[in-house]
């Protein structure tokens, strides 16, 4: 495996909240263009793991290497990695006091020092990509949940990231809005971007994922390609989880 191909490498990663051992000996490799779906019961550490990738959480042991750069306390490295990793949150986290357009141009202007006109062009392009260009001058409070999440995806894409992280992107949406967001994510996947997605949407995993990773109690229990994972789980824990969510 040529190392240039590896986008995310987590080696023996351990994390504690105080004395609570929340991530145990995590080893995970993600190659360029791969789509990974992480699933598991709540409290299993999935969100924590994905937040360690862009340093929203700090790991205490082990190494995390993103696209050749190691994640340490070095602030410059952190900011460099963050500008190449995009993240979409469960609660959208749009900036309510800025317009949609301003939400999208915020990062390119302040983290990349892009001229405003150029940033706005890119922003409109991505708004069209998620199919809501007409909302550019509205405020987040005026949009529906599904629209807000699509804006959040567009906002992350404006930084032209190499990796996209999704932290339960549809969990806070009303059922009728989940499809519009998943459609956008499927399109993204088909364009070849590297994706790590924490989700309960097993349909999405079956359609798009290269690999499904099952976590429980802070460690990775099993990972496999979707067919094998859903039809032939190896461990009893995995089987238990599958029976709970697929029933």
């Amino acid at each position, binding site marked *: 495996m040529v190392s240039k191909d590896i986008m995310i490498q987590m080696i023996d990663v351990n994390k504690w909240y105080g004395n609570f051992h929340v991530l145990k000996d995590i080893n995970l490799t993600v190659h360029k263009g791969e789509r990974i779906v992480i699933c598991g019961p709540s409290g299993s550490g999935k969100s924590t793991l994905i937040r360690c990738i862009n340093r929203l959480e700090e790991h205490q042991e082990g190494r995390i290497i993103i696209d050749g750069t190691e994640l340490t306390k070095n602030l410059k490295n952190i900011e460099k990695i963050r500008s190449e990793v995009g993240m979409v949150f469960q609660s959208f986290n749009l900036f309510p006091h800025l317009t949609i357009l301003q939400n999208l141009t915020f990062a390119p202007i302040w983290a990349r020092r892009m001229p405003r006109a150029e940033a706005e062009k890119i922003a409109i392009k991505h708004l069209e990509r998620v199919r809501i260009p007409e909302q550019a001058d509205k405020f987040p409070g005026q949009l529906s949940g599904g629209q807000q999440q699509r804006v959040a995806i567009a906002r992350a894409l404006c930084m032209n990231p190499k990796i996209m992280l999704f932290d339960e992107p549809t969990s806070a949406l009303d059922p009728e809005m989940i499809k519009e967001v998943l459609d956008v994510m499927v399109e993204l996947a088909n364009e070849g971007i590297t994706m790590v997605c924490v989700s309960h949407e097993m349909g999405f995993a079956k359609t798009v994922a290269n690999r499904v990773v099952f976590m429980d109690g802070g*460690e990775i229990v099993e990972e496999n390609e979707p067919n094998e994972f859903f039809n032939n789980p*190896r461990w009893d824990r995995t089987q238990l989880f599958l029976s709970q969510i697929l029933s």
Partner: protein
Amino acid sequence: MSSPPPWSGSNLLVFEPRPSRPAPRQTVGMIGWLQTNLFNGWFNSIFTVIALGFLWQTVPPILSWAILDAVWTGGSDACPPGYEGACWVFIFNKFRVLMVGLYPGDHLWRPILAGGVFIALALVTVLRILNPKKLIALWFLIPLPIYWLIAGGLGLTAVDQSLWGGLMLSLGLATIGVLISLPLGILLALGRRSNIAVIKAICVGVIEPVRGVPLITILFMASVMMPLFLPVGLNINNLLRVQIGIILFSAAYMAEVVRGGLQAIPLGQYDAAKSLGLNYWKTTALIVLPQALRHVIPSLIGRCIALFKDTTLVIIVGLLDLLGMVKASAQDPEWLGHDAEAYVFCALIFWIICFSMSRYGRSLERQKEEE
């Protein structure tokens, strides 16, 4: 993760979870804590050093003044002038006067008993022994026997209000102030929301000017102006006038707090009450007010704390509350030069009472959130 054996048919393997390990010492324990909390980065480290330097300069001298070098026993000659330590003998000596003012010595059992009842009531409140209705009823009833104990009449020797003072006076003014200004404030708030123009105008005309001026002007009004408004020959004593002023001032602020609570009641409540056939007063008393008041309990307690602190202003119109007695005591020719001890003691009393009230309010807030 332990490598699974080669896949064999439909056998599921029993998963053995990894044991949890304790966190590495660097990150927990003293060193880790110091690193994250005091010294993470340039900026914070410099500030920590400055803060530690400041503490080193100030805390040891204060401790030695207040405790180590302080004088705790002796007579009025126990603290020679220029002595570097605190003279707590002064406070012990003046304690009675600070607590009850000039109350005659042979009737001291009365304020002491009254104080005991008051403390008992406070404990009952904080420990939540009674349900709210009984508690509120108790609070409105108990001041009557307490007043009788302190003022006299009906079998007890009368003690003139000019002799009342100290902490007893502060608590009295504040308690009566709250007990009367809260219902008054509720009425004002209801009136302000009324559609009857005249009533609304009167309420706004009372609330806004009273809230817009300092308490001192209200106290001056009560103390100096009120005698001019009364029929010639009718005199109300100064304490009563000041109490009225405090009540008026507090009522305006209570009215605004209650108004905020009333505004949070959804329209549906009024509709439901109307469809049950309840008239205005029944709706208000049984449905609207209980909810509104519950919403704003923290703010109401904040107003109580503010009122208690505001009673210190009565020194300006000639009454000697705790702060007034403290200041007067510090002028005693036998005990000159102990202003610092006096004010520190006074601050301590206020701090304990106010902080307890605010903790109580916070616990009520938390209890409300858990419901």
